[in-house]
């Protein structure tokens, strides 16, 4: 148990989260920095037309957590910082069957929302304390707790581990 390589612990995020929720008439607020993730489709909250545009600060505002795991595309354990995917879905009040995720290079994958929760998908923003750049599969990389759950070592999960994520469409 002591050597458990996977640990998600909420940082001071919950306080921030509470602030974000109270501040402003809008649930989401407006992005101040560059938009790194746009979500559309069956969501309860939007801030630009039918879509929810999020910058890094808005994502961090949901409460940062860490995940330490190996991945099929990196060597050695890596420490990812970001937010549990399910928390993002809840924040946007997403309802539907799947999230169709599209990357900067137009890679598309449909991830069932049930998978996101069951497999505990994680929206990573930093790797080993450094913000993910496009060259490092950033700014957003969806990773999974592979070390904790050996069942995740399958092709479907590898397809779902989309990097350079740019848009989500909840259907």
């Amino acid at each position, binding site marked *: 148990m002591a050597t458990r390589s996977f640990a998600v612990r909420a940082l001071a995020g919950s306080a921030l989260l509470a602030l974000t929720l109270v501040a402003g008439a809008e649930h989401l607020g407006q992005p101040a920095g560059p938009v790194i993730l746009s979500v559309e489709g069956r969501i309860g909250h939007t801030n630009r037309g039918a879509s929810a545009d999020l910058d890094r600060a808005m994502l961090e505002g949901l409460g940062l957590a860490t995940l330490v795991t190996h991945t099929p595309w990196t060597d050695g354990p890596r420490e990812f910082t970001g937010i549990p995917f399910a928390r993002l879905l809840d924040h946007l009040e997403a309802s539907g069957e799947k999230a169709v995720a599209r990357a900067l290079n137009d890679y598309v994958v*449909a991830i069932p929302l049930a998978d996101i929760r069951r497999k505990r998908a994680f929206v990573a923003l930093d790797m080993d304390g450094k913000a993910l750049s496009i060259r*490092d599969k950033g700014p957003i990389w969806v990773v999974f707790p592979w070390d904790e759950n050996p069942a995740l070592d399958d*092709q479907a999960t590898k397809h779902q581990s989309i990097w350079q994520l740019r848009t989500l469409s909840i259907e």
Partner: protein
Amino acid sequence: MSRVRGTLRYLVLGTTIALFSLSALVSFSRIEEHKRELQVERNSVLWLATSLEIEYLRLISAVIRYSLEPTAGSLAAARRRLDLTWSRLPVLLEGTEAEPLRRLESFPPVMDRVRGALEGADRVLSDPASDPRAVGAVTTELEAVRPMLHEFLTASMLTDELLHEQMKDRATSLQHGQYASFLGMLLSGAVLVFLLARQIRAVSRARHRAELQSAALREEMTERVRAHAALRHSESRFKDFAEAAADWFWEMDSELRFTYLSDRFEEVMGLSPDAVVGHALDALDEGQQTARERWQQHASELARHLVIDDYDVQWRRPDGRTCHLSLSARPVFDADGAFEGYRGVTRDVTQERELAEQMAHLASHDPLTGLVNRREFEKRLERVLDTARADGSSHALCFLDLDQFKIVNDTCGHVAGDELIRQVAKRFATCVRKRDTLSRLGGDEFGVLIERCDIEHARRVAEALRRAVEELRFSANGHSFTLSVSIGLVAVDAHSENLTQLLSAADSACYAAKDQGRNQIHVYRADDAMLARRRGEVRWLSAIQQALGADRFELVAQDIVGLAAGSPGGDFEVLLRLVAEDGTRILPGAFLPAAERYHVSPRIDRWVIRNALAWLAEWRHHMPEPGKCFVNLSGLSLGDAQMLDFITGELKRTGVEARRLCFEVTETAAISNVGNASRFFQALRDQGCRFALDDFGSGVSSFGYLRTLPVDYLKIDGVFVRDIVDDPVDLEMVRSINQIGQLMGKKTIAEFVENDRILAALRTIGVDYAQGFHFGALRPLAERRPSAGRAALAGNAGDTASSADAGGRPVGTA
């Protein structure tokens, strides 16, 4: 000593059983492991290498574009492309996924060259003041590395093969392991059987000894019974008989043989007492329908000398009539308490029983159809709901509403209406299992309760019910009617709220099925009604439904021309047009989104398939081999369980060979549901149909999925093809899509071929097929003749049909 031996025997037995289970377990887990291993085999090595090449090609395109028009925008685009290409490197250099690639000999040098080229590009692109010549040099270097990269991709395909071999070896060794554990199972099984056989023999010997002892005892007893019998008989016989008013009396001896039967026996049973007296009970059992279990229970009660009260039995008389009997009996014991036999009475209760049954049937059944009525149906539904809550099982509830009943009733009167209901009920009865409940709920409404089934099974049953009505030809008073039924389907499981909620859900699902154009099955969803309100596309929906009802669709055909010398021709794609009330043709782009949203696109697809097959049935014998008709399919049809059966059925009905059909599915539709798509493709390909991925190339994801999707053709997205003559980037895109497609063994088709120059460029690249206005305008399929297709190929190449009809674009259903 014998106790020790006994313990030892059980010990051996236990160990053997444990061994047996263990080897079975090992064998099972081996099989599981085997299966998992084979899944991993679908390794994405090739995909990793391919992605690098695609990104690399896109980078070259972006740099070329920047060198042609050096603006801030094109610079930013090139830098974005550089970053994306760069991101492919760590993926190859690290992690388990790319491990097989790293084992390739050419891996380090290729990586070095690629990195070098990227670093060069990085230097030039990060310096805003860089000289155009430097950009030119970078392009040259990038281009120079490309062939190497491509060779590497080809080599990586070989790795894939190697990997395959490795997997095979591993599978073989697994198989050997499995054989070993199977042998273990056999051996320990044999030992087990031997030990059990010994055990059984020991037990039977012991029983035999005991029987010999008890036989001697019994003989002595019988002697004593006989001595007392005569005396006791006369006293108690009449007392017992008088206890019950009865049809006939009987007596049995201690061996349960009939010794006495009163006079009315023959009258009631239709059997001579002589046939029974002196025989055991079994003599009566012969040829009867009484359930074996019940009969045995009765026999065992007698054998245990119990008092028998009101035992009910059905008796079939030799003359064929069935009567119900009620039987009571008392055991008789002698002064010493030894069993002497039975005395009993039997009554004929046939009339009472039949009356009661009639009453119960009347209260719970519909007199017209003989089906269960609404009250009984709801009672059973309640029972099923209780079961679901108790054991978590799932069931389904169907509401069926005849679509044209009112018309029949109004035009031909109630007698015809009643006859229709009777016929429909009879048809329905053939579609459901015995254990399921079919009910007439009233008027033209029916209900079906399908027990212990998942929603898919229920859907199949509903489909059978729907078809049963569709196939019914009803005529009355010289009118003939085509009928259909709308079906609402609701799952009944532990989550179901209550009876009222279920009934109203089934009702609204049935209503939704009617609303969607009748002759439908609608599975209840909680948000049905809400969604429909939210979207403003109802207008299109009703237009589509009217068009479906009135057959106001039209197919137009466009030739697909083989570019290799000596191509036989004859291929064409059919495109859909909705004919508006005023006769104008509406393109699919306008109405298909609504069709998708409201799930009517599978119905449209059915219309298209039916009509395309009708044409093929008429003309296929005049078509050149292997001429095919390309038909667009919507994404929803891939998930439609009945679509496969429909297509198979239509092929069989029309006699058209499956190889005459090629289905086109947009890559987006295929990718958003890869599982369904693969299954669907595979099932139809097994019959001989072909598949094409439509609008291919808009996302690179496609290349990754390409390996898992069993398709034959790639249709290069027309937006790339249109400008290949003027735009080097588009040319490069088409070239790389074609190249990768060819590498993976797919045929490529270019759409939007509008002039000779595009055609020439496509020929140079090596694309297999082309289609577009260059080969002539679209023609209604109805007017098409197989030879006309070839005329278009040979003739008027200059006629580019400059009309702006976007119909040249085979609008997919995405």
